[in-house]
C-alpha cells in the first residue's frame, strides 16, 4: 500500500470485530448475571464463536486479499484496522475449536451440578476462559503494534489468574513469577514499539513494513520486541515461569495456558519477523530463535523424561514444543539469504501451532483425568491406568503420536514443509534438529506408554469416577491434531503435499522414531522401565540427565533469567546490525 493512500474495509470485515467482541460481551454478561448463569452463557457463546470463526473463514475464501475492518471508519495511520489474512483465519478457527473442546472438558470440573451452589473457582474459570479467547482473537486480527500490546497484556492478565485458581501458596507463587516476568517482557516490547513510532511515525503493520529501513533504530526495536515476546512465550532460557505455572494449575486451566495463551506472543513474533520486518531481519539473526528453540527441545525433553509427575512431564514437553515453534524462522530464508520461503514457513508454523494447541490440550486434560481418577499422577505408579481410563490414556497417547509427527498429523505436515525448506536453503543442520525433536517427543510417549499398560501390583482401588464427556473431549482434541493435515490440504494447502504421505518410506519413519525415543528413555529417564532405579548400569547417561536438570534449575532462577533476557535482546540486535 502506498503512503497516503486510504484503506477501505472489506466485505465480511465486521465479522472480525464480532470475533473479538463476542467473548468479551459474554464475559461482561456473565459478570452481571452471576455464577449460576455464567457456564450457560459460556456454552451458548462457544458454538456462536465457532460459527463466527467459520463465517470469517468462508468470507476469507471468497475474498482476494485479507479481510479488513476499520474501527469507526478511520483509516490508518490515524485509525486502527483489524485484518485477517490466511494465518490469522486459521488461528481464529483453531482457537475457537480448542476453546469448545476445553469448555466441554471443563464442564466436568467447573460445570454447575444441579443443586450445587456457586463456587468462586468456577466463576473465575469461565470468565477467564472467555477473556483468553477474546484476547487471542484480538491478537490474531490486530493490524497495529500498539493494539497488539494491549491484546497481549489482556492475554497475560487473563492467563495469570488461571494459574492460581486453586489458591494454594505454590500456585500463587507460580502466578506471581509469571506476571512479573511477563511484565518485563511487555516493557521491552513497548519500548520497541515506541522506538518504531519515533522512527517511522506509524505502528500500522503494513505501513511499517513499507517504511522500515535496515538501520539501527529498526534493529534495536526488533531486537527488544523479539526478546520481550520470547519471555512471554517462555522460549528457553526464558521459561522460568512455565513449568510451575502449567504444572500446578487445574487441568482445565493448564490446557488453556499451554495450548492457547503462549500462542499469542508466538504469533506476534511470526508477524514481526515475516510480515512487518522482512526488510530488516536477516538470515544470520533468524538463526537465533531457532538456536534457542533447539536448546529448548533438548533441555525441555531431557528434563521432561526425568520428571516424576505426569503433569510436570507435559509442562516440560510444552517447553520443548515451544522450541519447535521457533525452528521456522531461519527456514524462511533461502540459500542466498533472501526471504523467499516465507509462505512455506508461515504455513508450517501455523500448522505446528495448531497441532500443538490441539494435542497439548488433549494431553493436559488426560493428565488431569488420570490425576482425578487415581488421586495422584506419579509416573512410576501409573500401572493399570490404561485399563481403568482407556479413553483418557488413549487421548494422551494419540496426542503424543500427533506431536511426534505421525502421518497424517499436523506436525507431520509442518515438519515435512520445514524439511523441504531446509533442503532447498542448504541449512542441513536444522534437518537434524527437526528429526531429533520428534525422537525426543517419541521418548516421553514411550516412557508413559511403558507404564500405563503394565499390570498393577495390586488391583487399583478407590478409583474416582470422571466425567465421560471430559474424556471424550480430550480424545477428540488429540484426534483432531492427528488428522489435522487432512483438514489443511482440504482447506488452503495444496493437496499434493500429502500425495506420498502413506508411502512405505514415510510410514517407516514412525518405528524409527519410536526406536530412537526408546533409546533416549533407556539412556536418560530416571527409571526407564519400572519404579526401581536402573541408574547403576548407566552412570554416564544418568549424569548427563542430572546435568540437564541442574542447568534447567539454574536458568529458572530470577537473576540468571533476567540476564538471559538482556543477553537475548543484545545478541539479536548485534546479529541484525552485523547482517
Amino acid at each position, binding site marked *: 500500500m502506498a503512503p497516503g493512500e486510504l484503506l477501505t474495509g472489506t466485505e465480511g470485515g465486521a465479522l472480525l470485530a464480532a470475533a473479538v467482541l463476542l467473548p468479551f460481551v459474554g464475559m461482561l454478561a456473565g459478570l452481571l448475571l452471576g455464577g449460576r448463569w455464567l457456564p450457560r452463557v459460556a456454552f451458548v457463546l462457544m458454538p456462536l464463536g465457532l460459527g463466527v470463526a467459520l463465517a470469517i473463514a468462508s468470507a476469507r475464501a471468497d475474498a482476494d486479499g485479507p479481510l479488513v475492518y476499520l474501527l469507526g471508519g478511520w483509516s490508518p495511520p490515524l485509525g486502527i484496522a483489524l485484518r485477517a489474512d490466511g494465518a490469522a483465519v486459521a488461528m481464529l478457527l483453531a482457537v475457537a475449536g480448542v476453546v469448545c473442546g476445553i469448555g466441554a472438558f471443563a464442564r466436568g470440573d467447573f460445570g454447575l451440578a444441579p443443586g450445587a451452589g456457586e463456587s468462586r473457582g468456577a466463576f473465575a474459570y469461565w470468565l477467564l476462559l472467555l477473556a483468553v479467547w477474546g484476547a487471542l482473537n484480538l491478537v490474531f486480527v490486530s493490524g497495529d503494534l500498539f493494539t497488539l500490546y494491549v491484546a497481549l*497484556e489482556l492475554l497475560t492478565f487473563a492467563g495469570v489468574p488461571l494459574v492460581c485458581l486453586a489458591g494454594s501458596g505454590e500456585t*500463587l*507463587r507460580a502466578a*506471581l*513469577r509469571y506476571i512479573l516476568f511477563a511484565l518485563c517482557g511487555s516493557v521491552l516490547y513497548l519500548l520497541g514499539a515506541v522506538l518504531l*513510532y519515533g522512527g517511522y511515525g506509524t505502528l500500522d503493520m503494513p505501513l511499517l513494513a513499507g517504511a522500515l529501513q535496515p538501520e539501527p533504530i529498526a534493529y534495536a526495536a526488533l531486537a527488544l520486541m523479539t526478546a520481550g515476546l520470547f519471555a512471554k512465550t517462555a522460549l528457553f532460557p526464558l521459561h522460568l515461569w512455565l513449568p510451575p505455572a502449567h504444572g500446578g494449575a487445574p487441568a482445565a486451566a493448564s490446557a488453556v495456558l499451554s495450548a492457547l495463551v503462549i500462542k499469542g506472543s508466538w504469533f506476534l513474533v511470526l508477524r514481526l519477523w515475516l510480515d512487518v520486518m522482512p526488510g530488516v531481519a536477516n538470515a544470520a539473526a533468524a538463526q537465533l530463535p531457532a538456536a534457542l528453540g533447539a536448546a529448548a527441545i533438548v533441555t525441555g525433553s531431557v528434563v521432561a523424561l526425568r520428571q516424576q509427575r505426569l503433569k510436570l512431564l507435559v509442562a516440560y514437553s510444552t517447553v520443548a514444543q515451544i522450541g519447535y515453534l521457533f525452528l521456522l524462522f531461519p527456514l524462511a530464508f533461502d540459500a542466498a539469504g533472501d526471504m523467499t520461503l516465507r509462505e512455506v514457513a508461515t504455513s508450517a508454523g501455523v500448522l505446528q501451532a495448531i497441532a500443538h494447541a490441539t494435542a497439548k490440550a488433549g494431553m493436559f486434560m488426560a493428565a488431569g483425568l488420570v490425576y482425578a481418577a487415581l488421586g495422584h499422577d506419579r509416573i512410576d505408579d501409573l500401572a493399570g491406568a490404561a485399563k481403568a481410563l482407556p479413553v483418557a490414556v488413549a487421548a494422551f497417547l494419540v496426542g503424543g503420536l500427533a506431536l511426534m509427527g505421525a502421518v497424517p498429523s499436523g506436525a507431520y505436515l509442518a515438519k515435512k514443509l520445514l524439511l523441504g525448506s531446509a533442503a532447498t536453503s542448504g541449512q542441513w543442520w536444522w534437518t537434524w534438529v527437526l528429526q531429533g525433536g520428534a525422537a525426543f517427543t517419541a521418548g516421553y510417549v514411550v516412557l508413559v506408554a511403558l507404564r500405563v499398560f503394565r499390570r498393577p501390583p495390586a488391583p487399583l482401588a478407590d478409583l474416582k469416577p470422571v466425567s465421560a464427556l471430559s474424556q471424550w473431549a480430550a480424545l477428540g482434541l488429540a484426534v483432531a491434531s492427528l488428522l489435522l493435515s487432512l483438514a489443511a490440504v482440504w482447506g488452503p494447502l495444496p493437496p499434493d503435499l500429502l500425495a506420498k504421505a502413506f508411502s512405505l518410506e514415510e510410514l517407516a519413519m514412525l518405528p524409527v522414531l519410536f526406536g530412537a525415543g526408546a533409546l533416549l528413555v533407556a539412556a536418560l529417564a530416571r527409571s526407564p522401565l519400572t519404579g526401581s532405579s536402573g541408574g547403576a548400569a548407566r552412570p554416564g547417561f544418568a549424569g548427563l540427565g542430572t546435568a540437564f536438570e541442574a542447568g534447567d534449575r539454574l536458568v529458572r532462577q530470577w537473576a540468571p533469567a533476567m540476564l538471559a533476557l538482556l543477553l537475548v535482546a543484545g545478541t539479536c540486535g548485534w546479529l541484525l546490525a552485523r547482517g
Partner: protein
Amino acid sequence: MTIETLFALTACALVGIGLYGLIAQPHPLRKLVAFNIMGSGVFVLFGALAKRGAAAGLPADPVPQALLITAIVVAFAATAVTVALLVRLIEATDSASLADAPPRE
C-alpha cells in the same frame, strides 16, 4: 543540550534503574516498583517523541499521547493485579519469597 536530549537521557536513566531493580531486588514488591520505574522511562521517551512531531505540520504529535494514556492504564492494571497476587501469597504462606519451595519427593 536541547529539551529533547534531556528527556531522552532521563528516559535512559529510568529504564536503567528499573532494569537494575528488576534483576537485583529479590522482594516481589521491589521488583514491581522497578517495573513501574522502567515503564515510566518508556513513557517519558514516548512523550519526548510526541514533542518531536512525527506527523508533519503539527507543533506536537497527538497520537503518542493517546497511546501513552492507554499504556499507563495497562501498567496500572498490571500493578494492581500483581499487588493483589502478592497480598494473597503473603496471606497463604507468610512469606513473599519467589524462590521455589523445596521439591517434594
